[in-house]
């Protein structure tokens, strides 16, 4: 494979990672505030269908994207209302919603299945796109890919470098302390859950009006992306930068699955296609395993040097969730 083909392939990785980044950053914001929105997978599918339907009927890409974000925000509002106001299990509600929204998308999307519709065009950035190798890799994409770069940086800056971001961390970590400092915990949780939902909703049109243009029902290939976004949120340690790295890694693994197929004829193509999914599960296992008691007990039997090395490796990967994640907050 020559360099040009590799650059084209890696540019494709950047493009296919964009919707995963939108969903992952959205979920990161939601979970940072303490709300688990498990409906991501169904939300992406429903928003992809809705935005394609709106874009086809109005011939407006902008309205399509707005529709997708509204769908995401509405689903997130249901999660927020049932969990924050009605105190129902966030996991149960999110899981039910992911099944309902996916089925709803397939049911309502039947009339538009296979139709051709508008698609977001590439917009190479002047000057930057001329840079050898880096230009085609990073700056010859659709505006959505550039938006994903900005979102990663913006979300990271917002969470870790601003006062409202500090309050967001407080609401997710110690809601009682955040409340004592003057934060309206419920309102902030509502806000970030809906904002996160809108970003998840943006992932749908990024597929149906960009990366995988069109609506093809159950064979659209969107099922499973939301679960990956949820896994990446954990893998990223609720940090947008690290989560984005995970998204690029996932897209890279998917690309490698396609590229390696001709070179490995002995391995069935299905194995390479699904390989990124079990690899993500293994990665999740690696980032959470460091906290398990049995791991410490097993490591205790190793020679001192090996034990130290493995412990250090596991500790560098280990992530811990916001302390208030999934727990309701009531004013005393």
């Amino acid at each position: 494979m020559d360099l040009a083909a590799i650059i084209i392939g890696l540019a494709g990785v950047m493009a296919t990672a964009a919707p995963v980044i939108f969903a992952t950053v959205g979920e990161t914001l939601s979970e940072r505030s303490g709300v688990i929105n498990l409906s991501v997978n169904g939300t992406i599918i429903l928003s992809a269908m809705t935005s394609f339907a709106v874009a086809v009927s109005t011939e407006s890409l902008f309205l399509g994207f707005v529709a997708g974000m509204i769908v995401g925000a509405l689903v997130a509002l249901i999660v927020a209302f049932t969990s924050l106001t009605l105190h129902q299990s966030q996991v149960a509600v999110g899981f039910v919603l992911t099944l309902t929204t996916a089925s709803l998308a397939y049911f309502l999307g039947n009339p538009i299945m296979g139709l051709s519709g508008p698609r977001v065009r590439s917009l190479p950035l002047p000057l930057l796109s001329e840079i050898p190798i880096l230009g085609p890799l990073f700056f010859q994409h659709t505006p959505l890919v550039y938006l994903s770069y900005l979102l990663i940086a913006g979300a990271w800056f917002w969470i870790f470098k601003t006062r409202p971001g500090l309050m967001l961390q407080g609401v997710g970590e110690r809601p009682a302390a955040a409340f004592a400092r003057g934060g309206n915990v419920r309102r902030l949780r509502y806000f970030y859950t809906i904002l996160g939902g809108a970003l998840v909703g943006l992932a749908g049109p990024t597929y149906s009006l960009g990366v995988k243009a069109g609506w093809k029902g159950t064979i659209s290939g969107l099922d499973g992306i939301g679960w990956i976004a949820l896994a990446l949120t954990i893998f990223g340690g609720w940090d947008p930068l690290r989560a984005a790295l995970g998204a690029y890694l996932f897209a890279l693994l998917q690309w490698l699955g396609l590229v390696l197929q001709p070179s490995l004829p002995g391995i069935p193509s299905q194995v390479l296609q699904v390989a990124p999914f079990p690899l993500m599960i293994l990665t999740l296992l690696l980032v959470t395993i460091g906290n398990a008691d049995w791991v410490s007990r097993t490591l205790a039997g190793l020679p001192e040097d090996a034990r130290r090395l493995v412990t250090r490796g596991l500790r560098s990967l280990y992530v811990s969730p916001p302390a208030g994640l999934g727990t309701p907050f009531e004013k005393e």
Partner: protein
Amino acid sequence: MLVNFQVVPAAFVAFFFAALNIGSIQLPIVLKLDSTLSGVLQGSLVLFVLAMEGARRRLVRLREG
């Protein structure tokens, strides 16, 4: 959660959802409707029950002050 963590009603609820699943295969043949409608019905039903349970508890809490 739907059966309030009780074993006996769980059997009836499981039977109901199994009937919905099996019935969904008949949907396209009999009613010319997509079988995914069954998923919408099941999900909406569970969501509605969860929301109603939450609303009931909230009302009780409000009434008790």
